[in-house]
Every structure is written in structure tokens, then in C-alpha cells.
């Protein structure tokens, strides 16, 4: 239900885009984060198609090749793994699986969790009693144990891993959303909307959700890293993504035995995880300010100063 003002279409589009870009430019950290994420996204989409052959080719002479050795060609700049495969190529190729699992799990848990949280927080009926208990049940169950049981029974495919990880992360969103909704529901502007005769759907999606959303986005970005690492521990237990498929988390755990003499095996994929999470976090931070009319001037002021 959009209520935006109809303006002449021709010049509305470019100015809106330019306004967003200039607000992004005002926050340099966010700008860098967006560029990095764009690179990661590119790797995730085109990486396997471009570098899959190179990334899986063994080269026993290049076992645990150290990084920054420029004699072996650019693929080995970050070194080679235990089977002599170039780490750079593997990180690029692994981006696809990693992003798919992490984004899928985070998005699924966020959507399901916040939807349940909205219902639990907004309704005053039985649902508000039962849904939080559901979260308690999931939380009281060790998440890894749950994953082991489910993946033991089901096939360990990408979809199932997303499913399992999503289920274990639902309570985080559910509880946060419910707590915030309980508070926002009582605010005066929600009552004002009710006096006007607004339907529950309208109140939830137009008045409550926009207030809760920034919190959810922040949790989601933090959860991104958690999910990547959780997925690697599943792989470690032999029920997650299995070699020859690769993910960053799996690479970290594969490098663990060599930690003392070849640190780069775990370090580079670990760095990729950290940088991705950090970028997402910076982006969500920027988004929180940009979406809030009372805060937006900080970015607009900055943009004016710079440009």
C-alpha cells in the first residue's frame, strides 16, 4: 500500500537515485562496504562459472604454498591449500555456496521469526501465549543437536541445511520482534490510527513494522557471520556441505589441522567471512540512519558538505 505522492515520472527517478547515492557517499564506510559486497555478489554469481576448473585442480607441488609468492601466478597470491589448490580461486568459488546458505538461512529465519513475533506481540489471544513458548522450545534444544538429528534423517543438501539453520535462528527474531511490538503497539500514533479505523494489517505493516525493522536488519547482519560458522561446524561433523563442494566455513575448518605451520589456509576464508559481515553491518547501520526521517539529515548534511 504505497501512498507516495505522484510526481512527474520523467525526472523523479534520476533524482531519487541520485539522492540515495549522495547519502551513501556521505558515509564513506558504507560506500566501501557496498563496493565490497558488490564484489562478493559478483563472485557468488559468476565465480564457479569462471574459476571452478582451476579451483578443484590438485597440484601436489604447490601443497600449502605460502601467500605473497608471486612466482606461481596470480591465482596463488593468497597461497595454496593442503592439496595445492589456489586459495584465491577457492574463496571466489566458495562465495556462491556460502552466500546461498547464509543469505537463505538468515532471510528465512528473519521472515518467519518476525512474522511470528508480530503475531505474538500484536494479538492478545491465545497465539500471544503459544508462540513465545515455541521459541522457548527451540532455544532450550541445543541447536547443533537439532541440526544433527534433522540432517541425519534428511539428506544433507543445501536446502536442508538452510532449513535447519533457519529453524535454530528463528527465536532470536521472534523474541526481539515480539518485545518491540509490545512496546510500539501502545504508542500513541498506533492508537491514533485505530481511532481512524485502520485495519490490523495496516497498523502492523504501516505503523509497527517500519519501527521494528532497523533492529531486525541489525540482528540479521550479525547473524550472517554466525550462520556461516554454524554451517562450517555442520560440515566438520560430516553432515553439512561436503567436499568437493566448498564454503568459506568449510575452508576454515579444513585449514584447522595446519594452523601452526600454514595459517593462511584458515586465515583467508576467515577474513572473507569477517569482511562480509562487517560490510553488511556497516550497510545496515547506514540503512538505519537513511530510513529514519529524524536521523536522515546527518547524511544529507554530510552529502552537502562533500559535494
Amino acid at each position: 500500500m504505497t501512498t507516495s505522492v505522484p510526481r512527474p515520472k520523467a525526472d523523479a527517478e534520476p533524482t531519487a537515485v541520485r539522492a540515495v547515492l549522495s547519502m551513501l557517499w556521505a558515509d564513506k564506510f558504507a560506500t566501501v562496504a557496498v563496493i565490497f559486497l558488490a564484489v562478493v555478489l559478483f563472485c557468488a554469481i559468476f565465480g564457479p562459472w569462471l574459476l571452478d576448473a582451476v579451483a578443484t585442480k590438485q597440484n601436489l607441488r604447490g601443497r600449502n604454498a605460502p601467500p605473497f609468492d608471486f612466482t606461481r601466478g596470480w591465482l596463488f597470491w593468497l597461497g595454496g591449500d593442503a592439496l595445492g589448490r589456489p586459495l584465491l580461486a577457492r574463496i571466489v568459488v566458495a562465495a556462491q555456496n556460502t552466500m546461498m546458505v547464509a543469505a537463505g538461512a538468515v532471510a528465512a529465519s528473519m521472515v518467519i521469526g518476525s512474522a511470528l513475533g508480530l503475531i505474538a506481540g500484536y494479538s492478545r489471544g491465545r497465539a500471544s501465549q503459544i508462540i513465545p513458548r515455541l521459541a522457548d522450545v527451540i532455544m532450550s534444544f541445543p541447536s547443533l543437536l537439532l541440526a544433527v538429528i534433522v540432517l541425519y534423517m534428511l539428506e544433507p543438501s543445501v536446502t536442508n541445511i538452510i532449513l535447519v539453520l533457519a529453524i535454530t535462528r528463528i527465536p532470536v527474531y521472534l523474541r526481539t520482534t515480539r518485545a518491540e511490538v509490545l512496546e510500539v503497539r501502545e504508542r500513541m500514533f498506533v492508537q491514533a490510527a485505530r481511532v481512524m479505523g485502520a485495519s490490523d494489517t495496516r497498523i502492523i505493516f504501516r505503523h509497527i513494522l517500519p519501527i521494528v525493522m532497523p533492529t531486525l536488519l541489525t540482528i540479521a547482519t550479525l547473524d550472517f557471520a554466525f550462520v556461516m560458522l554454524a554451517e562450517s561446524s555442520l560440515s566438520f561433523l560430516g553432515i553439512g556441505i561436503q567436499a568437493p563442494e566448498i564454503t568459506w566455513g568449510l575452508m576454515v575448518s579444513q585449514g584447522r589441522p595446519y594452523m601452526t605451520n600454514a595459517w593462511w589456509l584458515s586465515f583467508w576464508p576467515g577474513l572473507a567471512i569477517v569482511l562480509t559481515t562487517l560490510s553488511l553491518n556497516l550497510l545496515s547501520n547506514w540503512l538505519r540512519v537513511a530510513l529514519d526521517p529524524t536521523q536522515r539529515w546527518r547524511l544529507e548534511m554530510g552529502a552537502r558538505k562533500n559535494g
Partner: protein
Amino acid sequence: MADHLLEVRNLSVTFHTVRGPVHAVRNVSWHLDRGEVLAILGESGSGKSVSAAAIMDLIDCPPGEITSGACLFEGRDLLKMGVEERRAINGKRIAMIFQDPLSHLNPVYSVGWQIEETLVIHGTPKAKAQTETLALLAKVGIPDPAGSARKYPHQFSGGQRQRLMIAMALALRPDILIADEPTTALDVTVQAQILALLETLQHETGMGLLLITHDLGVVAEVADRVVVMNAGEIVEQGTAADVYANPQHPYTKRLIGAAPGKGAMAPDRTGKVVPLLEVTGLRKSYGAFAALQDASFTLEEGETVAIVGESGSGKSTLAKCLLRLEEPTGGKAIYKGRDLLALSPVELYAMRRDIQMVFQDPTQSLNPRMSVYDLISEAWVIHPDILPKVRWRARVAELLDQVGLTPEHMHRYPHQFSGGQRQRIAIARALALEPRIIVCDEAVSALDVSIQAQVIDLLDGLRKRLGLSYIFIAHDLPVVRDFADRVIVMQGGRIVEQGSVRQIFEAPREAYTRNLLAASLDPDPAVQAARRKARLTESLTA
């Protein structure tokens, strides 16, 4: 000039914000003597609290910067003192109390412990501190001091909490007490008690009392001298009586002119009576607690009915029940031949168009993430049959014009407006549905006096032009006196008295109404002085 207890000289404070420096106060000078009550009077944003904050070292620098001036306490400049020296003065020699006592009392310690703590920190032995605490509690009029000392802040009422804050401030026998809007959050009868307490204590101890307030009535009741501030500058100072009787500066004149309660009262309505809304036996209870008992009244076409009462009297519950924000326990409200309280959700949706509400605090009642256009046009999104979408823009512009804003304001967000403008937006939103009745729940009590007068004028104009009826809920009697046709007085969930405005204000029948009228403060110091004298002789003869 060293003989003043406290003197502020040419003080200027600037706050550096991203939007450029804001001069909060400019070249402000005033002084306070022992045994004197000085009031700093001003509206919000006038800088009245800033000089007190400078004295107490409460201004955060970097954003703030004291650009010039001095605060002389017994001849020594507070602003040039070291941190240690300053700490020895703050709290001990100069104490401060605030508007909201609940947020300044620690909820996890008993109040006795907190007062003792103040004493012990400043070097009183434990045993002595205990007896002194009890003496203090007795002094500020807390019943059963020994028992109360063991209670926690939430177990006290708002007025009692303010008394506790005063006890804590007085524990170290300060020379100066700074009170920043000490009674703004309190009911009128409680306000009168707290002001009387402050005055008695000030006479007993001979301390200087600095009172920061926006309320002319408070000034008239207790102040010896008054400093009037506007936009960071002192516009006028002098004795309270002089300034009221003979204001020099146009701003002071405007402020005094805007004080409600002096205009002509509405004449009693005569002629054919058309009841628009008829409420009978309205009840609401929460468990065993009856918040509203057996409320019956009528609202006529084009009439303003005011509902007055102190906090907890059930006046807001009454409004919420009528609007079905709360489900009433029993009773009837007949509007156009239908019982509002028995409508099905579908019928209720249609009825929402006719009865709208304006809330107390526009900061909270407007969604901060929606632009003014979105806020007002939301009414037509919800009720699409009122207006086709092509006409929304024009109608929003028209409504903004009607409430005294301009169409350019359409694309701004609520935080970009002042409190008074925000309330205008809220009124425009209510008007968008073209209602017959508007319920105003304390709609002007969060606003400054001059803004209050403007909003009341606006509401009055709209009533005449559009034939609206208002249910006007308020705790502030002077405003009601100017605006209402009839008044309903509530206490403890019951209607104790109702009648025409003239009858209630000139010949109140119930003792409660009389108390309420007596406790509300007149902005004229002479009137307040006469009332005080009357009270005194009354208590002497009794």
C-alpha cells in the same frame, strides 16, 4: 556586588550542532539573595534552564560551550573552579530538584537509604544520618517517616516523590535550591501543596530559591522577583507584582495576555436542545478496580463539553471507552439512534468517520516515519469513499491551510515542526475524516501558554465554521473556563458535578470542585496574595 549569594554575569552559552552554532543564552545576568525566591519564566526553548545548568556544571562540553560570563557564588566564580572544588559545592551548598522525580530516584533502593546515602557521602556518621533522614521525611510532610523510609520510590505518589526529592536536596542544608519545573507534572491540588512546602522550608532555612518555570501562576504564587526570558535573552526583570501589573516588553505583554482564564465565559446555551451524543451509565472496571462508574452526560450539536479532574479521575478512560479503544464494562452511548458501545466491527469502522480524537502529545501521536502528506492522507486510504485519490493533494493543502500551516509543509516530517505546529497537524488529520465530534484528550496541556491560546483559538474557529462538537478533556481549569460551554467534574471514576461553565466556576456546589478551583493558580500575584491571606486567616480561625 559581592553581597549577592549567587550572581550570574553576562553569561553566554553556545551549543555547536551540525546545523551551526545555537546561542542558547546570550548575555544573561541575574542575581539571587539569601531568603529570596527568584523565578525564571520562559517558554520551551527560551533558555531558562541553561543558566541553572551552567551553575550546576550540567552542560556537556564539547557540544556546549560557555563563551563568556561568570557565575559568582559568594563572590567566587564557579566556572573557574576545579572539579574537586566544584563537587564540594554541588549538592552540598547548591542543590537541585527536577520535574520528573521518578527518573531521579533509584528504583532498587529504599528512599530512606537513598537520603542517608547523601548524608553519609558528605561525612555524616551513619547513626546520625538515620535520625536526620527521619526528621527530614517528617519535615517535608511524608506520613509515617519510619515506615516510609523503608519503602521504594514506586510506592509513593507523584507529589510524595517530589517531596522526597526535596528532602534529599535539603539533607545537606544547601544555601541555594534550584527547582527546575518542580510542579509541572503534578495535579493542581498537589502543586499547591508542594509550592507551599517549598515556601515554608525556604522561610525556615533562609536559603535562596531559584524557580525555573513556564507557569505564570507559579510565579504569582511564590516568587519575589521574576526574570522573563525569550529566545535566550532576558527581556524583563523585576518584582513579580510589578512585572505582572506593568509589563514593559512586548513579549511579556503577549505572555501575560495569553494566560488563559480571563476571557468571557460562554453564555448558557438556550433554545432548542439537540442531543448529539447521549451517554448513560458508562462503566469500566479493570478486575475489581472500577476506573469509571456510572457516567452519564449528553453532548449537544455544536457544543463543547469539558471533562476536568485530576490524574486517576477516569477522564481519559471515559474518552477511550467512547472511542472503543477500551471495551467498556457496561452502559450506553447513543449517537444518531445507535449505541456506539454495541457496534459490530464493520459498523464501528463506518462510525470512526464521525468521531475523531486529538491526543495529548503530538510528538507521540504522529508516526515519526510518515510525512505530513502521508499522515493526513492516511485517513482516505482507510476510508477510500471520502475522496478520490486525484484530489488528495489539493485537500491536504486545504486542510493545512485551515489549521494555519502552509501547503509547503506537506513533504516534511513531524520532527521538523514545533510542538504547536505538530498539534495543528494532528488536528488536520482528525479533520480529514470530516467528523462531527472531536474528542480532545489534554490536547493543549503539553504546549506553551501562547501556543496553547493559538490552538484553542483554532479549535474554536473550526467549531464555528464546521459546526463541530468537542469533548474537551483537561486538568487545566483556566483553559476550560475560556473554551467550554459545559463542564463535567470527575473524581475517582465518578462524575461529581456537571453544569454550565458559568455555574461551575461561579457557584460550584461540590466541595471537590471548590478545592479544585481554589488550587488552580491565578497569573495575577495580587490575586494569589489575597487568596493566601484568606487561606491563612481560615487556618487561624479553624
